[in-house]
């Protein structure tokens, strides 16, 4: 079923339904609050946003860049409203501005200030920035899209909920292209199959199939990264 696109303030339904995300009720009618796709159930209504910033939520895995050293910790840019705080207790090695880390959100307060935990430091690799609202699509239902990308590009991938993707090894050029395609077509159906076709065609076109020698990553880190991405299996296929 093709989903309809709604704009802010557009009437979705006059029926009584449970309010999901990105909708609001005015005089008994339900309106959208952002540009997105309508997801309508028998008793609930939801709008899946197509634009928007990252809003920190507890337990999210995020990829951040350390921006400053503070008293007893570090300030980290996690693509949210303000820099997040990492206590020095949470990291084993010392960080410096520019360090790339992944972490879990330990605390979010009323004004969206964030504290991080389970910090891991990354060396090398690349960061690909995407719109945070497209992250569920890049992961896919039960990580189907993520697995596809890993197989197709032979890269180690870690997706942060804040719209930053860390990738190392493999064909990162192709990965970037594939992610750009997912972002561009996030509102369309049957995306996983399209991306599978796209990756197959690109790999064939390049001539040389990807060899295992491309990914020169210590085995230990590979394992680590995989176990991390499994943690975030809540990705919904929209």
């Amino acid at each position, binding site marked *: 079923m093709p989903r309809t696109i709604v*704009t802010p303030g557009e009437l979705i339904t006059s029926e009584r339904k449970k309010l999901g995300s990105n909708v609001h009720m*005015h005089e008994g009618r339900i309106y959208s609050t*952002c540009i997105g796709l309508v997801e309508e159930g028998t008793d609930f209504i939801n709008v899946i946003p*197509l*634009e928007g*910033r990252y809003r920190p939520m507890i337990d999210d895995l995020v990829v951040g860049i350390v921006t400053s050293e503070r008293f007893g910790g570090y300030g980290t840019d996690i693509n949210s409203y*303000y820099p997040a705080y990492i206590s020095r207790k949470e990291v084993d090695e010392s960080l410096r501005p520019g360090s790339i880390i992944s972490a879990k959100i330990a605390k979010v307060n009323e004004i969206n200030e964030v504290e991080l935990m389970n910090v891991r430091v990354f060396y090398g690799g690349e960061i690909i920035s995407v719109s945070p609202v497209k992250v569920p699509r890049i992961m896919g239902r039960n990580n189907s899209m993520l697995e596809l990308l890993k197989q197709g590009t032979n890269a180690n991938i870690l997706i942060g909920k804040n719209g930053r993707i860390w990738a190392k090894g493999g064909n990162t050029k192709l990965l970037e292209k594939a992610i750009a395609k997912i972002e561009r*077509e996030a509102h*369309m159906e049957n995306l996983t199959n399209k991306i599978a076709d796209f990756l197959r065609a690109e790999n064939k076109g390049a001539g040389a199939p990807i060899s295992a020698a491309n990914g020169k990553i210590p085995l230990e880190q590979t394992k680590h990264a995989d176990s991390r991405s499994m943690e975030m299996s809540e990705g919904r296929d929209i």
Partner: protein
Amino acid sequence: MSKKKEVLEYVDKEGKRTDGRKADELRAIKIEAGVLPRADGSAYLEWGQNKVLAAVYGPREVIPKHHANPYKAIVRYAYRMASFSVPERKNPRPGRRELEISKVSGEALEKAIFLERFPNTAIDVFVEVLDSNAGTRIAALTAASVALADAGIPMRDMVSGVAIGKISGNLVLDLNKHEEDAPDAVDMPLAVLPNSEEIVLLQMDGLLKRSDWENAFELGMTGCKKVYELQKAALKKKYEIANGDEQK
């Protein structure tokens, strides 16, 4: 502004205006969303001869910090006219007029945004008028509203606006520069939340009778609804383009 000459006819016997429009007809409007890659949301709008570019950044950290409100986000709206947007070069320094327009337009947008969801942050809206021909504050506000939606900022409704005027006894919608310069012109910019029909901006230059005002408001509201449809279409078009590519 007005030169000494014989009385001009602004609306002829067939109800046509000097540029061929009917009394309740808008100028040609073209809106495009998402034109600036580095902004969180953006829009480009052409309204008759007016050309306006709007960019939205945020919600983001407020600097200087003492401006922040711990209960809601603040909207910082900057309306600027490029020095080349008017026939005679304009001093690029923001003047009294621009500051006032920025203030009232920012307050109009505040009514539409769920500010309390983003405490301690600022939503920055920058609107640059590249070419002007009367009605730029409304053009700017219309573009800013599309840019806010493009940034994914949760809103109760879009903000749509239009100007209504009275020239030589005739109520007309959306004055152009020539009509605005008429010796007896009354100009009334109006912006509303189209679904709830709430007024968020209303100014008036000149005087109107009570009965005229009521008719003018009626005319303005229908105009705003037309603008609202164009805004919606512009936002949806951004996603249709990607759909079209796929079918090829």
